[in-house]
């Protein structure tokens, strides 16, 4: 029974329709009930579907649901195969994880939004977009072919655009929305190019046949590598990797729950999801995978350093998100797709928590986002502070929190691939711990830097916002136990995410195409065996090193920002140069402005000149020639054609003027003429005879 899969995205789509069509007339309570209800329903359906999936034997966990025929197959009569598309939903372990995260975290954020957005204009519009986003995101992760996935892919991009520009009367929000949309288009172009190349190669857009073909060694190596890179460029746009990450920090202009849902927990992870979904393709083209790893590592480190010097609480979290997404790509790039999805999941928990927590702070301070105007909020917002502590511990990687397990998994796998990559990732982890501690220090600890008027109005969040925070905090702390690494006794656990996901990332699963119990020369598995062989000692050592470094950094940050803020200021002075570079985000926006946007404008201007001078010139020339010839034509018509006609008329009139005289109407003149004629006839007759 897999034919109810289509209901999962349909529920939020219905909510979107109801709120979109009649939401304006409904009360705020009704709007919230519809919006949250459909997402909850979708979550329950997802749980039911995943439960069914889990009941299947490990190697065969696939549920397919061809909901509709989209483009029917047409017999091409021996030609190349035509495009045939079904509206195909597929649930396998990977999409199972994704739909649970999307609907679960999504539901919590919907509930939180009720409290956060209560006072805002266009309350119904917000929930309409949010429901549409859920429908599109679920289509994206459940889509069983590139085409269905692309519908979701573009749909979430649209919702992202709409929600970033939610405060559409503010220019910066509208600009940020456009920036996100246009940057994503660049990535999507590459995505479409990759998709179409795959179609040209394999004649289908569905994942399983393509992956089966790739897994059994079909397809030229370099083409597959190029496809992998093109799709990765698409992932870069969606998941904010170098060089297309610039939109994500600006996307913080949207409402904070949107930042939590779309720009931290779900949509931005679509790129990671896609790379993991196509694991066999990337394993068949390791060059592309290497690029993924390097870009991911570079983005992680780069964004983390920017995060150190930002003063806007949401900007810090935004760069942190970019950095953590880089982490996931590192994991995917070294072939540890399970670790990537694991980190995606834990990141969804703790980053949603951090964003919602920052939303609580911003809400409490009446839309103040500058951390320099906060401080000492621990006493005033105890619950927010407590949940923020959980998120902080998780993202910094304090042992036994969710971030610790997932990050450690990635660090270990990257160490196996290359110690250099490990060094970069570990440095990122340390910097992450530092800037998150700085954020905590500036926001919650130390002395208050608020003005007294604002301070008097600070209030703890209402219950509807508090409970999602608490649940997410619990998930952020405990989510790591979803996948305990073998070195820490994961083999003893009844369930690990790694083991659950393993068949999805194993080419042999696809190559066997349904044959039960296919084991063999299985690259992913072999890699793991190899990793396990390296000795647990190294893994323990690295784990200890990374954790110690993180905790030390946290302690240092705490000393700096809680106990001795003047030292932090002094450090800032001493490294003013570097601080300036980081504060200005390496001037990447300015660089893009100078290189891309200005040259684009110049191109536009050149095109304009071309248009005015050449195209318009040709058009005017044609016009002038036409007018000139028409003058000639008029002359010919007037003088020659009309002249001939008039000449005929005049000739006839002149001739008739002469002949008219003969008809006098007098009978006698006619008689005279008759006599004269008779006389002449007689004369002729006589002369002839």
């Amino acid at each position, binding site marked *: 029974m897999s034919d109810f899969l289509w209901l999962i995205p349909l529920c939020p789509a219905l909510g979107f329709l109801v709120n979109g069509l009649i939401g304006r007339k409904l009360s705020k309570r009704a709007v919230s009930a519809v919006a949250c209800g459909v997402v909850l329903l979708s979550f329950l359906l997802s749980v039911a579907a995943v439960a069914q999936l889990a009941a299947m034997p490990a190697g065969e966990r696939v549920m397919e649901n061809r909901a509709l025929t989209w483009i029917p197959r047409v017999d091409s009569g021996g030609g190349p195969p035509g495009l045939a598309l079904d509206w195909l939903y597929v649930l396998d372990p990977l999409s199972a994880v994704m739909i649970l995260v999307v609907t679960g975290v999504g539901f919590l954020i919907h509930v939180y939004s009720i409290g956060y957005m209560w006072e805002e204009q266009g309350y119904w519009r917000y929930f309409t977009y949010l429901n549409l986003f859920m429908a599109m995101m679920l289509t994206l992760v459940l889509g069983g072919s590139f085409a269905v996935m692309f519908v979701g892919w573009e749909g979430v991009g649209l919702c992202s655009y709409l929600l970033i520009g939610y405060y559409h009367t503010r220019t910066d929000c509208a600009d940020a929305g456009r920036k996100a949309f246009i940057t994503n288009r660049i990535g999507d172009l590459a995505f479409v190019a990759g998709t179409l190349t795959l179609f040209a190669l394999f004649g289908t857009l569905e994942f399983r046949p393509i992956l089966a073909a790739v897994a059994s060694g079909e397809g030229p190596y370099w083409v597959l590598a190029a496809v992998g890179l093109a799709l990765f460029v698409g992932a870069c746009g969606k998941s904010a990797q170098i060089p297309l990450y610039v939109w994500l920090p600006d996307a913080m202009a949207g409402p904070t729950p949107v930042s939590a849902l779309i720009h931290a927990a779900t949509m931005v992870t679509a790129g990671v999801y896609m790379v993991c979904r196509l694991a066999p393709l990337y394993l068949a083209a390791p060059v592309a995978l290497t690029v993924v790893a390097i870009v991911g590592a570079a983005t992680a480190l780069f964004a983390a350093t920017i995060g150190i010097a930002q003063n806007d609480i949401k900007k810090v979290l935004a760069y942190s998100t970019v950095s953590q997404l880089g982490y996931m790509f590192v994991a995917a790039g070294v072939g540890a797709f399970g670790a990537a999805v694991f980190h995606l999941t834990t990141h969804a928990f703790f980053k949603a928590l951090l964003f919602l927590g920052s939303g609580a702070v911003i809400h409490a301070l009446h839309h103040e986002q500058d951390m320099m105007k906060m401080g000492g909020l621990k006493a005033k917002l105890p619950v927010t502070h407590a949940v923020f502590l959980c998120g902080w511990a998780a993202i910094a990687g304090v042992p036994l929190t969710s971030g610790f397990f997932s990050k450690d998994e990635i660090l270990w796998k990257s160490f196996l691939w290359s110690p250099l990559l490990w060094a970069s990732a570990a440095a990122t982890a340390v910097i992450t711990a530092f800037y998150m501690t700085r954020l905590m220090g500036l926001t919650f600890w130390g002395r208050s830097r608020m003005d007294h008027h604002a301070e008097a109005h600070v209030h703890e969040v209402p219950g509807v916002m508090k409970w999602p925070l608490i649940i997410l905090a619990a998930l952020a702390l405990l989510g790591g136990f979803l996948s305990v690494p073998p070195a820490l006794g994961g083999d003893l656990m009844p369930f690990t995410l790694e083991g659950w996901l393993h068949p999805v990332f194993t080419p042999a699963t696809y190559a066997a195409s349904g044959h039960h119990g296919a084991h063999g020369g299985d690259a992913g598995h072999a890699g793991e065996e190899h990793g396990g062989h390296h000795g647990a000692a190294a893994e323990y050592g690295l784990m200890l090193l990374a954790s110690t470094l993180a905790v030390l950094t946290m302690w240092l940050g705490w000393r700096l920002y809680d106990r001795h803020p003047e030292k932090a200021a002094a450090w800032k002075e001493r490294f003013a140069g570097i601080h300036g570079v980081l504060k200005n985000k390496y001037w990447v926006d300015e660089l893009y402005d100078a290189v891309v946007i200005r040259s684009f404008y110049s191109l536009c201007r050149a095109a304009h000149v071309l248009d005015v001078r050449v195209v318009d010139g040709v058009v005017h020339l044609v016009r002038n020639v036409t007018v000139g010839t028409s003058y000639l034509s008029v002359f010919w018509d007037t003088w020659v054609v009309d002249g001939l006609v008039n000449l005929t008329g005049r000739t006839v009139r002149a001739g008739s003027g002469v002949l008219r005289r003969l*008809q*006098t*109407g*007098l*009978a006698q003149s006619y*008689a*005279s003429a008759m*006599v004269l004629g008779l006389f002449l006839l007689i004369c002729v007759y006589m002369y002839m005879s």
Partner: protein
Amino acid sequence: MVPTSHLLVFSLALFIVGLAGVLTRRNAIIVLMGIELMMNSANINFIAFSRQLGDLAGQVFSVFTIVVAAGEVAVGLAIIIALYRNKDTINIDEINIMKG
């Protein structure tokens, strides 16, 4: 016996008198009378040749022509009366309604 040529000259003279009347007089009735004269000159011709050739067919023709002339005069006079009623004149120079 009067030679046929005399009769022919007489008939010619009569015809010319009639023709002159038709062509020159302004009174429509006199024009009609001229036409009668020209017809009678034709009758004289018929009878002259009938006598010379001893054939009665010419005399039959002339009687026939007199009958036709009587009808013709009746029609002609009727036209003149109609003209007079419409135009108050029978001066042929003033009647040019045949002009298109």
